[in-house]
């Protein structure tokens, strides 16, 4: 009898992170989600995503139908119809391209078709401006799309997978955008740990629409002509309630994602140092990294300041935000979008935050910091913002509500 062969000790090697751009990571998420139909039309920064998906399909890594449309409008029409027949779809655009697709997008929302897309945020062109601004994604707030906002490339990949799960849930059945800060996330490669195919298959069941447009299932008509007086308000109420229900679905989905994939995120709002904070800086997306860097340094100097990061813009986590910011003396909103001639000449994120906080018992004072036209702020600008918010908390009165800290010339 031969001796028992010694079993070598099992070594589990830690996986090496892949260095992927946001565009590449999104493409990997699309592959992992086993998407059936992708519609594409180039516009920077979305082009990077489209190229990455096309390369995967061309290399035979991933089988899906990719349709390069003749315009963004057609692009969004293609996925709307494909999704209505029961296909899982992916789409995306940026800036003025997204604007051109608005008609198709709003029918997608009102028709409750769970399309998932990515907006690589881009300034609305003064010709050629491809800098990072949020106005393109913010302008889609009215269409019945869910909108979420990742902080880094890893979260962008995770968010796309969760977006399919939330959008296709029968309690929601609404389209979903993931908005990536253009350039800062779409085109910067950073280390990413992708989930495995098995993990994703367990987390994300196949898309099964309740009624799909397929002769095999019997005849149905989708998004028929609406007589306003007959079902206009009722149609919209269903979506209103879907957005309400989406909140519980989002919480469930992120819990499940942590269970299957092992990465945890707070569902709606990520806070840091808020337990004892008297003032706070609030924002979304990639620039939170610099804001957190600045705030951590200010805390070392003894300033009681915290950070608040919104992960969802639609549905907007108003109650959760009130809970986080009640009792805080002053908050600075840092944002990259604008609405000319708006109340107090402030930006759209400020409007959302101010509306939510109006219901708080102890309302913090607010200041808005605008970074427009694609010029990037540096940590020094966030230090300036924190100092101004601190002065506001101490009772200083400011002449304006909104400040343009990167502007050359007088900020009147």
């Amino acid at each position, binding site marked *: 009898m031969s001796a028992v062969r010694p079993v070598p000790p099992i070594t589990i090697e830690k996986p*090496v*992170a*892949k*260095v992927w*751009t946001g565009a590449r990571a999104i493409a990997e998420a699309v592959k992992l989600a086993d998407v059936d139909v992708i519609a594409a039309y*180039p516009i*920077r*920064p979305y*082009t*990077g995503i489209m*190229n990455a998906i096309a390369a995967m399909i061309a290399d035979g890594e991933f089988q899906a139908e990719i349709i390069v449309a003749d315009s963004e409008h057609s692009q969004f029409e293609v996925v709307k119809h494909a999704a209505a027949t029961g296909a899982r779809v992916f789409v995306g655009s940026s800036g003025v391209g997204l604007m051109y697709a608005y008609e198709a997008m709003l029918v997608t929302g009102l028709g409750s078709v769970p399309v998932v897309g990515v907006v690589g945020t881009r300034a609305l062109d*003064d*010709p050629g401006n*491809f800098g990072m601004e949020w106005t393109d994604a913010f302008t889609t707030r009215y269409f019945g799309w869910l909108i979420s906002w990742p902080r880094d490339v890893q979260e962008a990949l995770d968010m796309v997978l969760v977006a399919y799960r939330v959008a296709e849930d029968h309690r929601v059945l609404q389209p979903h955008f993931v908005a990536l800060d253009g*350039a*800062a996330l779409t*085109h*910067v*490669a*950073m*280390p990413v740990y992708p989930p495995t195919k098995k993990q994703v298959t367990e987390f994300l069941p196949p898309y099964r629409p309740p009624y799909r447009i397929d002769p095999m299932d019997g005849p149905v008509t989708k998004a028929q002509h609406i007589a306003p007086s007959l079902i206009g308000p009722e149609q919209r109420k269903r979506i209103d309630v879907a957005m309400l229900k989406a909140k519980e679905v989002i919480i469930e989905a992120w819990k499940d994602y942590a269970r299957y994939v092992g990465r945890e995120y707070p569902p709606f709002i990520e806070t840091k140092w808020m337990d004892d904070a008297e003032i706070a800086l609030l924002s979304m997306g*990639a*620039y939170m*990294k*610099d804001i957190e*860097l600045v705030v951590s340094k200010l805390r070392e100097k003894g300033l009681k300041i915290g950070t608040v990061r919104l992960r969802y813009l639609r549905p907007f986590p108003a109650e959760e935000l009130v809970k986080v910011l009640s009792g805080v003396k002053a908050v600075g909103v840092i944002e990259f979008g604008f609405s000319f001639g708006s109340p107090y000449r402030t930006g759209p994120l400020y409007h959302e935050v101010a509306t939510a906080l109006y219901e708080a018992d102890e309302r913090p004072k607010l200041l808005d910091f605008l970074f427009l036209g694609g010029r*990037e702020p*540096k*940590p*020094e600008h966030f230090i300036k913002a924190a100092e101004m918010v601190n002065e506001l908390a101490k009772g200083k009165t400011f002449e304006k509500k909104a400040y343009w800290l990167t*502007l*050359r*010339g*007088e900020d009147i």
Partner: protein
Amino acid sequence: MVRLVKVKPHIERFPEYEELDWIVSHAIGVDQTSDAMRFSQVLAQAAVIRGYESYYYMRYDDSPERNYLPMIYYVVIGNPKINVLLREEIEPVGHLFNVIAVFSSNYLIQRTAQRALLFDGAKTNATLVVNTSLSPDAVISLVKKYSLAQDWNGKVVTISSSKIDKSIAFPMIGATLRGYEKIDLDAVLRALDILGLEKKKDSVRKGYEQAVVKEVNIRAEETEKFKTMKHEIEIPEFDGKYWNPEVYYAYQKAAATAENYVQRIAAMPRWEVLAPGLIEFGPKPGDRNIGFTTGEWRFQRPVINYKKCIDCKLCHLYCPDGAIDFNPIKVDYRFCTGCGVCVTVCPTKAIEMMQEIQAMEGLIDEEVPVKRFEEREYGY
């Protein structure tokens, strides 16, 4: 009359960035986008294998779909983490760059995509890696004349990449390892496995072995560039008046004559002087717009042999940049991008392309690219 004031421009240094390691590469758009991307991707992946958080990206402002546009890629290596957001428009100020990788030697004598000097933002012990057939000494003398105006106690590494591999990225990676210690050859070879580029291991090894390394010790004051460049710019004194074309022209001239990045940024106008409706005041008839020069895109230039020229004006008509004067026929090198259309349309073959480095310095670099259509990468 516009009153001008002299200013010595300054941009605050960025300590969070200086704590990181940077490998910056300069390449010719379209022709070399894929090379610079591969170069950066492999080095970043190798750094991750060695336990450093590492990013790579292309400068977002660059539009490599335009032929010959200079472009920049960055690899950023944490110590070991990266706690700061990496902005796309990294200001080349202070001591950032550990390695400056130059894919085509014309960037030794021209400014970068950011209209900066090649050494703006370099650490004092930076390594300059050049894809060239020129000797390290020739590279050093070019740099002193055109693109170095600060202290430099580092290394020059030269490598003639295309003799090893048509994909010049891989020999360049090997050469870079000779002047940068955080990443070793083993890590790069593992990164190539991860990225499915096993076949390129040999090219990297050969680049490592064949690179020529030379130590450098130069003080800023010893460089011709430092001696000849102006260190101040003149911009209009703001007097509260808006939308005045003369003020606009003064800013435009300051930007056009800026010699480095800091000067160019200081020459950008404040909002009050912009005319409403995105108006730019154009050049007077017959002049060209000094606010939009494209001459620094060029790695080769057309030279007209007037003995053969029959003055047919075809080159003037076909020049896509309007860079050839009508009467007499003459190339305005402030605007010529070196595309070669004039050579193609000339019926008497009176125009020839010459390497920029040859025209300026009488040197011939075998690595200055010939067009490589199959390697081109478009789109962004």
